[in-house]
């Protein structure tokens, strides 16, 4: 089996790290030549890790919905505007009087792509398909599509949205599923 993008990435970083450490031992400096140009590069001796804490308190009903297998949106009680992603303030009315409504989870695929070259934090997944579906209610939803062969997908095809558990992280999210 060929190596995953994550394995290749980690291997390259590990090799670079070991190379720097060996150079540092002999010269006392974390300076290595760039492999292509030979330009001197200082290897950062500090590292920062970002993991954000993001407020979802006001849209908690959306996550309660996921726990029940439902996809929830907000609807302004004054102008009737439907919001997905859900938001608790209506900028048009300048009111914050929303009702939570369940979406039909049925619609059609309006566009899609397959992500072959992945971001670092998604490198552990095999290639995945991302699509945008237009639900019956007229709102769009971006999500993974449960089909990795783009030839089996078609713009305009019927799809539904299912609440799924994303592995290996093990958290609830939603997915577009071809329904033809």
């Amino acid at each position, binding site marked *: 089996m060929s190596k995953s993008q994550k394995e290749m990435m980690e291997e390259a970083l590990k090799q670079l790290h070991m190379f720097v450490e060996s150079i540092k031992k002999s010269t006392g400096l974390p300076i290595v030549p760039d492999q*292509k140009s030979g330009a001197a590069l200082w290897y950062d001796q500090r590292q920062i890790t970002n993991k954000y804490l993001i407020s979802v308190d006001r849209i908690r009903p959306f996550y309660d919905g996921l726990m029940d297998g439902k996809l929830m949106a907000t609807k302004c009680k004054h102008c009737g505007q439907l919001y997905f*992603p859900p938001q608790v303030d209506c900028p048009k009315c300048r009111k914050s009087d929303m009702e939570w409504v369940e979406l039909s989870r049925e619609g059609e695929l309006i566009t899609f*792509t397959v992500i072959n070259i992945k971001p670092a934090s998604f490198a552990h997944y095999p290639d995945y398909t991302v699509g945008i579906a237009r639900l019956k209610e007229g709102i769009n939803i*971006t999500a993974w599509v449960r089909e990795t062969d783009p030839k089996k997908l078609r713009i305009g095809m019927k799809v539904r949205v299912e609440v799924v558990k994303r592995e290996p992280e093990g958290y609830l999210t939603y997915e577009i599923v071809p329904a033809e």
Partner: protein
Amino acid sequence: MGRQVAIVGVGHSKFGTRHDANIAELAWESIRQALDDAGVGQEDIEYFVVSNAGGWSSEPLPAVVVGEYAGLNPKGTVRVEAACASGSAALKLAHDIVASGQADIVLAVGIEKMNESPTPTVVEYIGRAGNFFWEFQNFGLTFPGYYALYATAYMHKYGATEEDLCRVAVKNHYYGARNPKAQFQREITVEACMNSRYVAWPLKLFDCSPITDGSAAVIVASEEIARKLTDTPVWIRAIGAASDTSNLSKRTDFTSLRAAVEAARMAYRKAGIDPENPVKHIDVAEVHDCFTIAEILAYEDLGFAKRGEGVKLVREEQTYIGGLIPVNLSGGLKAKGHPIAATGVSMAAELTRQLRQEVEKERQATINKGIALAHNVGGTGHYAYVTILSLEKPSK
């Protein structure tokens, strides 16, 4: 409207993988050229605007790092961000400061050092530049991925093919091969492009602009100062700016960038350009070809072609020199390179030199009308700037 503002000096670093220079040295490469070109000193610059997207590079306050190295202290400064359109935002701010009479000479410099981080990290940062929480966190979109969503929709609606997209790359590499500042100075074929691997289906590696280090600088001045400094001021005739939703899912159509349409409409109105037939006014354009599909969308969003017919301009080679309107004679983002926040300033520097007829012969547009257009998109149509430059002073 305020005062008239002209570009009086430009500078442009070599674009590419620039491990030979740090962020300040790389910025200085273009700042020095711009000062020399304008014939002014640091003491004449009253304010400087630094565009930098950053994240992948180590300095969190690039404006002051650049200011110190380039001898610009104690002049006032700010760092601006409008994703890939940061450079145009910097130019707009510099323009507005002079137009409003707050200063007579302002420098805008765009700098990006993307190669300070490994590629997967850069892919991560750019992928997060949409709506991080709703579209990246769970679904890991990448920048090619966002534009691929547009490509799939456009190809389905109008019958464009992957070969058509590759033809855009072929053109831009053709001109990149003739631009000594370009990252890729070699021509490619449709076959080579078609044989490159998928990055985000249906986009392949050769459909994508590269990860680039680079800087570009522009000095703008009021009319009175511009007349003293140069015989060939290039006037900023109009800047249109617009935005669109952070979430792609909030948009209704994936065959056009609404923000670009709106920015073009504003710019054409201010510059007195007929929106039904803008090409009759314009000698040369630089458009935001971060991906090949983006150049085709740009033709239509700018009104160079009707809806669905942008791809025809590509097939008929109408955007080479001698065609309907030459586009991206610098090599574009595709071949010149795309150092995110330097790109908009690079477009202004390139078009200034095109209007002055100073670029390499093989990629010099014929200048008859004296008007050039820059189309600079940030994110996936999240920000859009359309800038009209002109040899003649705009009439009030």
